[in-house]
């Protein structure tokens, strides 16, 4: 208390689940997230999201769902520090089935986004919690230091046998100085933005 303000982790006891339920990518410049002011308990989750001026659904400003292989998506992070400098390595890994022109074009778009502006990601865990990575605009202002998510380290295979996996293991990652913020609204509001 005399040096810093610590907080309890007093989660209400109850079951939870592992795994990823849904995944979307978006152009981080298309969407503005809304966040209430922090209070003594800390930062608040995002409570709303809307298209920014100039971005239209008809023009391609959407939440793009990713149909990954069932039970083959995972969000991970790793925290590290050097002195007072803290880093969180965020990573999403998921499998896309069937090597094809479709997957080639999808990669071209993802790589361009990673190079030019970063990829926005919304991920719903099987616990029901929804997290946002790579957002750039909050409360109608640019985030001071945004998390830039990029495809890096993906791999693919045709497999050898008829029942081998044929497809791509996608890795999208980025470094930030904090963990991801939650989106507290129901998932239907994100689905409506598809």
């Amino acid at each position, binding site marked *: 208390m005399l040096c810093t303000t610590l907080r309890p982790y007093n989660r209400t006891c109850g079951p939870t689940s592992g795994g990823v339920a849904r995944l979307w990518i978006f152009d981080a410049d298309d969407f503005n997230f*809304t*966040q209430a002011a922090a209070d003594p308990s800390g930062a608040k989750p995002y*409570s*709303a999201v*809307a298209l920014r001026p100039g971005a239209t659904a008809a023009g391609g400003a959407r939440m793009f769902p990713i149909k990954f292989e069932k039970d083959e998506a995972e969000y991970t992070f790793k925290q590290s520090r050097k002195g007072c400098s803290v880093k969180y390595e965020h990573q999403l890994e998921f499998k896309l089935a069937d090597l094809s022109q479709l997957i080639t074009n999808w990669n071209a778009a993802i790589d361009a986004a990673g190079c030019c502006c970063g990829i926005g990601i919304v991920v719903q865990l099987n616990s029901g919690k929804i997290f946002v990575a790579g957002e750039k605009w909050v409360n109608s202002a640019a985030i001071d230091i945004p998390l830039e998510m990029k495809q890096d380290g993906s791999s693919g295979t045709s497999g050898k046998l008829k029942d081998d996996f044929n497809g791509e293991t996608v890795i999208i990652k980025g470094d930030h100085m904090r963990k991801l913020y939650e989106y507290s609204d129901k998932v*239907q*509001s994100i689905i409506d933005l598809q």
Partner: protein
Amino acid sequence: MFMLIKIKESAKEKVIAYNGRALPLGQRSDYAELAVIALESGDTSLLEVFETLPTLEELKKQKLEQTLPDLPKISSSNKK
């Protein structure tokens, strides 16, 4: 008497994801929820969709009164 929440005509096509849906504002009626989000965040892109907007205290008081059950009135003739 509470101040009414009114959305600007020019904002009725705006799509905002909140309170479980993302529909054009002209197709919604849950403006009180959006007003609370706008006031708690100070997000100008949300504040500017309102033509009239009560204070956060008024909105919370209004919500509380709507959730309180109607209690039966006690007749003065029942007093002993």
